């Protein structure tokens, strides 16, 4: 067995390919073969995309119109999975939690990442050491980070020990709606700011030094140079990193799942957690699929608007 197929299947597959090749060789003229060669060479990749991407997408889209729990045959329910979604308070709550999360996490990560990158782009002491230390959080697996942080946020954990040391009352970080979301945000920012930092740093290092030398002849203000020169030049990097982080933050799952399972109540139940629960805990595949497609549609709208407002197409052109 190799890749799930036995020897006979592999031999048969090989013979079919050989047959196609020989048929093409003897039945199609040299000129026609040359003309269609690029299309022919693309076929394997197209086939993979069709099987691995298009088919699951179409299958999932079809599911969105079915009521199916796995135990009984699916039944067609039209648009009711979509309509019921809008009547469900959990849908609105998950959407609101996700947006809150994105609205705080992404700007903080991008701004702090940029500032640290600008700072560590200068000639300062222990610069390389600091750069290495700062990038370390990127390499931590988010689920592992979540589980490790359970002890960090524990009532007897190091954060509360520190609070007690300074005479404050310990806080149930994961036990109240506000502190739970804040705790997750803190970890996300801790983990992903270094990523923004790293990309910004590589962008800053590619800036031509001659332009800066010329600018310093005009002004001594570092802020003015940063605002009028650095920012406009690295705008494509800012746009790229913002979109990447936005996309990831909108899909956030592992940290809240490992830390709070979406609780207390619905305080940290993000859209991905809600969809996961409906699909893979409750096996309501139709409902989960409808919600996943709605989110895909929402992301498309958000990114289209961003492209328009931020004039990203101009930036990339």
């Amino acid at each position: 067995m190799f890749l799930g197929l036995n020897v006979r299947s592999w031999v048969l597959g090989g013979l079919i390919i050989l047959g196609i090749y020989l048929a093409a060789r003897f039945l199609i003229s040299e000129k026609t073969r040359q003309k269609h060669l690029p299309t022919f060479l693309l076929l394997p990749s197209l086939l993979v995309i069709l099987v691995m991407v298009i088919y699951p997408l179409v299958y999932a889209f079809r599911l969105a119109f079915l009521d199916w729990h796995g135990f009984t045959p699916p039944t067609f329910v039209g648009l009711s999975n979509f309509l019921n979604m809008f009547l469900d308070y959990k849908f609105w709550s998950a959407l609101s939690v996700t947006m809150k999360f994105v609205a705080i996490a992404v700007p903080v990560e991008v701004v702090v990442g940029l500032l640290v990158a600008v700072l560590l782009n200068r000639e300062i002491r222990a610069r390389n050491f600091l750069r290495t230390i700062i990038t370390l959080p990127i390499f931590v697996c988010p689920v592992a980070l979540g589980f490790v942080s359970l002890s960090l946020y524990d009532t007897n954990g190091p954060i509360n020990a520190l609070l007690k040391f300074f005479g404050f009352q310990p806080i149930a970080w994961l036990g109240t709606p506000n502190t739970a979301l804040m705790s997750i945000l803190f970890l996300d920012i801790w983990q992903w700011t270094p990523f923004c930092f790293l990309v910004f740093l590589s962008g800053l290092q590619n800036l031509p030094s001659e332009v800066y030398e010329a600018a310093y002849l005009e002004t001594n203000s570092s802020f003015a140079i940063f605002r009028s020169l650095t920012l406009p030049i690295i705008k494509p990097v800012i746009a790229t990193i913002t979109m990447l982080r936005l996309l990831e933050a909108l899909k956030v799952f592992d940290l809240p799942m490992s830390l709070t399972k979406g609780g207390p109540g619905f305080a940290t139940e993000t859209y991905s957690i809600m969809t996961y629960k409906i699909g893979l805990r409750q096996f309501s595949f139709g409902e989960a699929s409808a919600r996943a497609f709605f989110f895909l549609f929402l992301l498309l709208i958000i990114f289209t608007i961003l492209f328009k407002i931020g004039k990203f197409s101009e930036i990339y052109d």
Partner: protein
Amino acid sequence: MVKKVRFVRVIVVSLVFFGLLAGMAWSQEKRMFEGVTISIGVLAAGNRGPISGALYYWRDEWEKQTGAKLNIIEVPIAQIREKIFTDLFTGGGTFDGFDGPIWITGDLLAGDYIYDIEQWYDDPRFPKWNKDDVVPGLADVVNKWGNTWYYAPNDYDCHTLNYRRDILLDEKWQSAFEKEKGYRYNVPPRTWEELADIAEFFNGKDWNNDGEPDYGISMALQKGQQAGWHFISLASPYMMVPSADGKPTRYKGVLWFDPETMEPLINQPGFLRALEMLIRLYKAGNPAQLGWELGGAWNEFLDGKSIFNYGYGDLGPLAQDEERSKVKGKLGCSILPGTLEVWDREKGEWLKLSEPNFITNAIGPSWSIMIFKQTKHPEVVYHLAAFHASKEISFWNVTHGFTGINLGQTFQFFTNQNFGDKKGEATIEDWVKQGWDKNDAEEYVNAFYENYTMSKTILPQLRIPGMQSYYDALDDQINAAVSGQVSPEVALQRVYDEWQKITKQLGVEKQLEYYREAIGYKK
């Protein structure tokens, strides 16, 4: 002379020949599944952890007896349902069976995914166990569906109360409580109101003399974990009017749904009072409870920081581990408290009682070996289940705390404890030999005995199809209500609406049929 020698030779050769034949036959009989390998899924807890520990411990012995190989596949608790059904839906064939939670039974039966075990029960090729050994009433809500047995006895979970016996029996605290509350408490508390009073009294006081304030109760209330089950256990005496013979009727001995209409009972006044009580208890404990899984709540109790904890029987064995526990020898255990009022749905009023309404609790996964129809070796899986159900193995399992297997067969109880004509066969020495403190062991076993004998009304685990959807809806709202995001009334009404929706999606008539079979209701 030559003839004599030849005769002796023939006799010797014959003896050797027939001896070999008999030996081969014997080994064939003893190793009936030579060369077969089965894969059994189990809760991921390692070779000394709950549930998986017993499978690992006995693997070599079972393989020696059967000649088969046992492949143990550990699955984290949060993924068990997902892994099982993904495998069954797709026909993946990863698992021949699963030492799984009984709450998926309805889903398994709806998809016709499991074998019943009646066909093998009397077959002499398999290890013997006795159906009558299971504590009366328990098999109906754990091992059986209707009149058919699906699982051999293994683990029987229930919620019991754990408390600090040393502190509650201390005269100093008893007097102080009496002075503050105006009455003397029972040890253990007999009603939830009394328990809440005690928890509130101790909460915030430094009763363990470590220089820091301690807590009244520790509960695992994290979302997606145990909050729903804690609530259901607490609600049962408020909602379940006892029936004369313990059998559920339309208005007595039922909790989840009306067995005539499948209408959810979750928004009834009994549930509302229970939820208000859960919120009151939460406030008598560490605010971090909303972020705690089972381990968090157990650790708080084992660390000697809370007076009460209620839940599965695992805490008793854990308390014996002196590396982890400060409460060995200080443990008190009992049936969960009752109530002096119960909501009578038939009359639409609170029924006042002279004695507390105790309910036999059967909430929990009650891990049992399930034989999947996708397996090519159902008999081998049954052999494993029967092996673990047999007296000697099962007795060893319950007395060794690390296995996480709890009592539910009559012979596992003490000799002075009886269930009708069935008597317990264990002595306290059997437990002490395994490292238990004598008093703790007595308290622990007595709590199970109380739970199974003080009431005829039994709170069953919800086992119908779609159980996970029903539970998630409940758990979400209980968590939201306790954390103050919604009022108890709104929370329960939302659960009611969601349960109605789930039932409609799955088919009211079908669900009603499953529900009646699951709780043993006869019209």
